[in-house]
């Protein structure tokens, strides 16, 4: 039976969930939290979302979307353009390439793998920023931001799992 127009529209809307959640997290990350000291070590929320969806529904987020998310992040955060896109693209490609590994793995294993992936991503980001600025920037803040990102993974990951099960289980 061919799906009706409304069914197709519904499926289409559900398929946008990974993109929309990632874009929302980009915006959430730059909202002033008014917590002393937090702003310099803010977690990379978009990285969590890109990683999660690449590991679980790589069919719903193409390279174009990942590139656009990185570009948006660089644009509104004032960082040099291109770095966010590069880091997110490589993370996405790496995880999609290891799709067999992530398929059906438990949350803890995915988190463990994220520790490595986020470490690589932070290192790459730090090197790129230093290269663009023409001088090594202090590695202290990126390192704490990395720890914060790893620590935030269960929280954001849990929210994404909820959304994933609620909206994307059958489509």
């Amino acid at each position: 039976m061919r799906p009706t127009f409304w069914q197709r529209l519904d499926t289409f809307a559900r398929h946008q969930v990974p993109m929309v959640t990632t874009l929302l997290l980009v915006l959430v990350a730059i909202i002033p939290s008014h917590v002393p000291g937090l702003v310099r070590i803010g977690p990379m929320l978009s990285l969590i979302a890109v990683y999660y969806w690449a590991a679980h529904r790589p069919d719903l987020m193409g390279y174009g979307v990942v590139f656009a998310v990185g570009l948006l992040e660089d644009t509104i955060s004032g960082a040099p353009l291109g770095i966010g896109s590069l880091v997110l693209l490589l993370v996405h490609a790496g995880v999609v390439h290891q799709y067999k590994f992530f398929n059906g793995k438990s949350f803890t294993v995915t988190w463990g793998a994220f520790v490595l992936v986020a470490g690589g991503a932070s290192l790459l980001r730090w090197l790129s920023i230093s290269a663009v600025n023409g001088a090594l920037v202090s590695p202290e803040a990126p390192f704490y931001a990395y720890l914060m990102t790893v620590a935030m993974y269960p929280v954001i990951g849990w929210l994404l799992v909820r959304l994933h099960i609620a909206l994307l289980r059958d489509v």
Partner: protein
Amino acid sequence: MSVKQPSASPSRLGHIRSLVARFALVLLVGASFALMLLGKADILLVERFRTTATDAVAPAIDMMSRPASSVAEMVDNVRELIGIREENRRLRQENERLLRWQTTARQLETQGESLKSLLNFVPEPQSSFVSARVVADTGGSFAQSLLVTAGEQDTVEKGQAVMSGEGLVGRISEAGRRSARVLLITDINSRIPVMVGNAGQRAILAGDNSDRPRLLFLKALQSIVPGDRVVTSGDAGAFPPGLPVGVVTAVNDSDVKIEPYFQRDRLSYVRIIDFGLSGILSDIAPPTSKADSKR
């Protein structure tokens, strides 16, 4: 958890699709590098792109940041209520002290005015300001900047000084139509001519993305001690002289760190001040006082 995973199609179509995906990846990674180079080469173009994009998403960020700032305000309120008696006592003492200073300031003002009139002093251009809400704060090692909800339609222009109640926050680095980016004095790209201490020694305040920017090109390092006040010097015409910036916290061999007066985690509103320094027509038509706030 039982979540549907997509199955890889083994057909020729799947093969073509994976080739296309790989091509797209290579293309987009190349585009990322190209953007990095472009950001270095054509600053104007990149800036225009940034302001347009930021203007487009500014309303969304503005809306999303409101709950966070409401919560922060509520927490502040409770904190203030708890310490209200202590605060009251402190303020009364401070008020007494300030009243004495006021008298001194009045006397000095009159004296200054009469001396200026003796010297045929050319008055400084009048300044005007707009207040704007801080809707985004980007930190980390990447860029130290704020987004504020005021742009060219509110007479905000690139280069204007941004102050909080405590001191200098930074300057406008990009102005869109309804939003603007503030480059903080802690950003790695920020360089501000300053004066240090009572002697008014000239230096350049350079950010390095940490919370403590450092002073460069100091001539007499030994005369600098922790606790010295740092104010703008007005050199290069970027800012008027005398805006409070921060205090010296640490002096090592060849390295002087300062702590800015502004408190980053408490920035909800900032004042964007037009000192009339950049406008070439400012001496013909002095800028009208645009003291309307956006609150």
